[in-house]
């Protein structure tokens, strides 16, 4: 025995099959019969280990040639894929083997009996027990020991066919048989258990190794998840589902579509529970929910990345080894997902910064290129007019140039504003604003456009100061005023009102024009939208800019028709806290 173990362990590290064979021959010359048998058996076990190791090495080589692990794995050995498939039949099968061995050896012994004599028969039984111990567990071997002992007494020890033993010598033989058989069985069972444990450990680390390699090779998130599903599915022979949080809100879980297990509603609820509590549910760790189903929260210490749901096929409970391995798999998956998520976030941020920079550069250069010639035209026209020597016709033409320049400038301004809104570059500079002051500035800027209209101001006195962007709000009001002036007949009245209801300030522009066509009140704020039948002129930008600028500072816009005719546009802005003001002594 020590010989055998020594040979096994010393060669475990670096030997090849051929080495071991040569070594065996030398050993066989020296060791006794039992030792020889052990060596032979251990050798065959060692060969299996080596064969497996070679498979792994071969797999590595193939993998370097850009072949997936799945392809590199030998197809003939299903247990190489499914290492931890539990087998409840094993125990009964082993008892059966014990019994069959006993039966066969008894038959053999009955035929050998005339030549050997009943005492040598005990040795044949002993040999059978020892050999059996290499293949079956502790229980079956004890069972086999008892069977053979009783069988020997009953069938061979005189008086035959009875459990009675006459001579002292036979009694001693019988006792010694028991002691030797039990000792050998016990030792062999321990050896076997150790062997199994080592095999398990190796298989586990190999599975983990393959798993991490698979994940490391994944290109993106979907690829990671696909590989997790196929790997975990193979290793545990199970159906897999992965649930991932939606981007917002993170509490909602979405099922990854490539999973092999289609969850029903109650199963999804279980998964959601696992996700929110960050604790696994399953038949190995917590009170079983449904046999053979395990839900693991994919968490690497930080935020939960999702839920891994595993259902063993055929239904079985996870052993503690399997549960441990599955947990390690889940943690690995979570780590990789977390890394991927952070990397994605970083890439997104970089892209955003890039595109913002690009947008800003483009806006700046377009703005400069359009405004410079406009400035030149405008400056030239005014200089021409101010030179004082123009004929009446020239005078009128110069005024036309002025008006056209102003209009073109408004268009450029609108386009730039719309571009800023579209590219998300409107950054409101919130500061305390006096609404009546904003109105005053807006009316002043819209001045020329409103020349042909009667403007009536009804601004409630003592409106509270609100935090808003003065220029954006002013521009929004100017656009509404220009809009009203454009779509109502000359000479009609435009009312500009402001009032406060405590939580909101309401700014309204009311006109006496034809109002909005039916069903247009929602769409007028769309970019480039023109109401059907609208008179030519206008870019379809003005109201979209109003909406963009107002919403950028937390307000809302609304359009509608007045009960008495005419259109109504309103801007609602929240009234926050009042500003801190240290009053001076009167």
């Amino acid at each position: 025995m020590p010989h055998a173990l020594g040979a096994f362990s010393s060669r475990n590290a670096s030997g090849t099959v051929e080495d071991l064979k040569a070594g065996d021959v030398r050993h066989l010359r020296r060791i006794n019969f039992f030792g020889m048998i052990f060596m032979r058996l251990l050798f065959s076990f060692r060969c299996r280990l080596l064969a497996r190791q070679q498979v792994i090495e071969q797999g590595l080589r193939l993998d370097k040639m850009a072949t997936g692990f799945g392809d590199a794995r030998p197809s003939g050995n299903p247990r190489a894929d499914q290492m931890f498939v539990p087998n409840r039949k094993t125990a009964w099968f082993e008892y059966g083997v014990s019994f069959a061995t006993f039966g066969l050896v008894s038959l053999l012994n009955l035929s050998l009996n005339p030549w050997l004599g009943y005492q040598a028969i005990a040795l044949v039984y002993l040999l059978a027990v020892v050999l059996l111990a290499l293949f079956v567990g502790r229980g079956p071997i004890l069972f086999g020991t008892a069977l053979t002992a009783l069988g020997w007494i009953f069938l061979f020890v005189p008086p035959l066919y009875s459990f009675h033993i006459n001579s002292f010598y036979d009694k001693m033989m019988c006792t010694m048989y028991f002691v030797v058989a039990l000792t050998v069985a016990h030792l062999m069972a321990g050896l076997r258990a150790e062997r199994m444990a080592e095999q398990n450990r190796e298989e586990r680390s190999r599975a983990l190794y393959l798993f991490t390699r698979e994940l490391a090779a994944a290109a993106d998130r979907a690829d990671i998840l696909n590989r997790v599903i196929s790997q975990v599915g193979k290793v545990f022979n199970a159906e897999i589902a992965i649930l991932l949080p939606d981007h917002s809100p993170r509490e909602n879980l979405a099922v990854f579509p490539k999973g092999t297990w289609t969850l029903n509603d109650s199963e999804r609820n279980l998964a959601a529970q696992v996700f929110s509590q960050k604790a696994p549910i399953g038949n190995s760790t917590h009170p079983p929910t449904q046999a053979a189903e395990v839900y693991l929260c994919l968490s690497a210490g930080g935020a939960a990345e999702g839920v891994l749901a595993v259902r063993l096929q055929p239904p079985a409970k996870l052993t503690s080894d399997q549960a441990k391995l599955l947990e390690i798999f889940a943690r690995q998956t979570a780590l990789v997902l977390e890394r991927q998520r952070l990397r994605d976030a970083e890439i997104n941020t970089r892209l955003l910064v890039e595109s913002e920079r690009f947008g800003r550069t483009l806006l700046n250069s377009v703005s400069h290129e359009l405004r410079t010639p406009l400035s030149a035209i405008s400056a030239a026209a005014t200089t021409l007019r101010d030179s004082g020597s123009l004929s009446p016709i020239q005078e009128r033409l110069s005024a036309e140039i002025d008006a056209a320049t102003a209009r073109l400038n408004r268009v450029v301004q609108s386009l730039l504003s719309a571009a800023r809104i579209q590219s998300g570059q409107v950054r409101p500079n919130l500061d305390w604003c006096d609404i009546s002051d904003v109105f005053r500035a807006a009316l002043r800027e819209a001045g020329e456009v409103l020349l042909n209209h009667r403007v009536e101001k009804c601004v409630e006195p003592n409106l509270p100061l609100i935090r808003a962007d003065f220029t954006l709000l002013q521009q929004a009001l100017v656009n509404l005023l220009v809009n009203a002036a454009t779509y109502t007949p000359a000479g009609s009245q435009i009312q500009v009102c402001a009032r406060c209801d405590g939580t909101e300030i309401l700014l309204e522009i009311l006109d006496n024009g034809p109002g909005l066509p039916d069903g247009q009140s929602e769409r007028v704020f769309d970019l480039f939208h023109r109401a059907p039948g609208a008179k030519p002129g206008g870019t379809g930008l003005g109201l979209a800019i109003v909406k963009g600028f107002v919403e950028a500072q937390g307000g809302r816009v609304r359009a509608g028709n007045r009960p008495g005719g005419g259109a109504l546009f309103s801007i609602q802005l929240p009234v926050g806290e009042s500003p801190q003001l240290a009053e001076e002594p009167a």
Partner: protein
Amino acid sequence: MNTEVSPVALSALVIDDETQIQRLLTIALEAAGYRVATAGTGQEGLAMIAHNRHDVIILDLGLPDVNGQLVLQQLREWTQTPVIVLTVNDAEAEKVGALDAGADDYVTKPFNTAELLARMRASIRRANQGQSREPVFNLGDLKVDLATRRVAVRGHPVKLTAKEYALLRLFILHAGKVLTHRQLLQEVWGPSHQNDTQYLRVYLMRLREKLEADPSAPPLFFTEPGVGYRLADPAG
């Protein structure tokens, strides 16, 4: 006396990288009686300011070589020549930066030359006026005696609080000039309040209530959106 009959032409320096704007401003300013020099870059402009005396400088803030604000800071280290900056409409921060760095006024592109010339005249006048000024300030219906601190609208005395008067006085000292929120707050309320715009909003509301009693009269205070306030120019 002699200078009033045939005034020595004022000199203006235009710093702008666009040759078309340079040409047009040269024509327009020469038509208005200025001697005009032009520079295409900030460095060139600074060199010309150092070598020749100018009465007014027109500075484009979008120069290719140096930030216009930097040019302003550098030239303000040795000269108080009025500077009018050319800027674009939606660049409030740029305008505020330029004004805080010492610009006298700004004109938004596309500008009309009449407006530019008016601003130039006002800036030159304020620069020449220096510290000496009449103790009594008249603007429309408003009459303020800076010596006795008496304020009256259409002859009726108006009672102002100390801060209201301090603010009004600051506006009067810079009548016609844009004052940024920061400048106003720092002067009247002190450096610790230079971001508390709410004071300005409230006090402007009160000053307007008390001094702009007649809604049909032209306003006294102009809001420059996102930048600051300006008191109407009594001479313009």
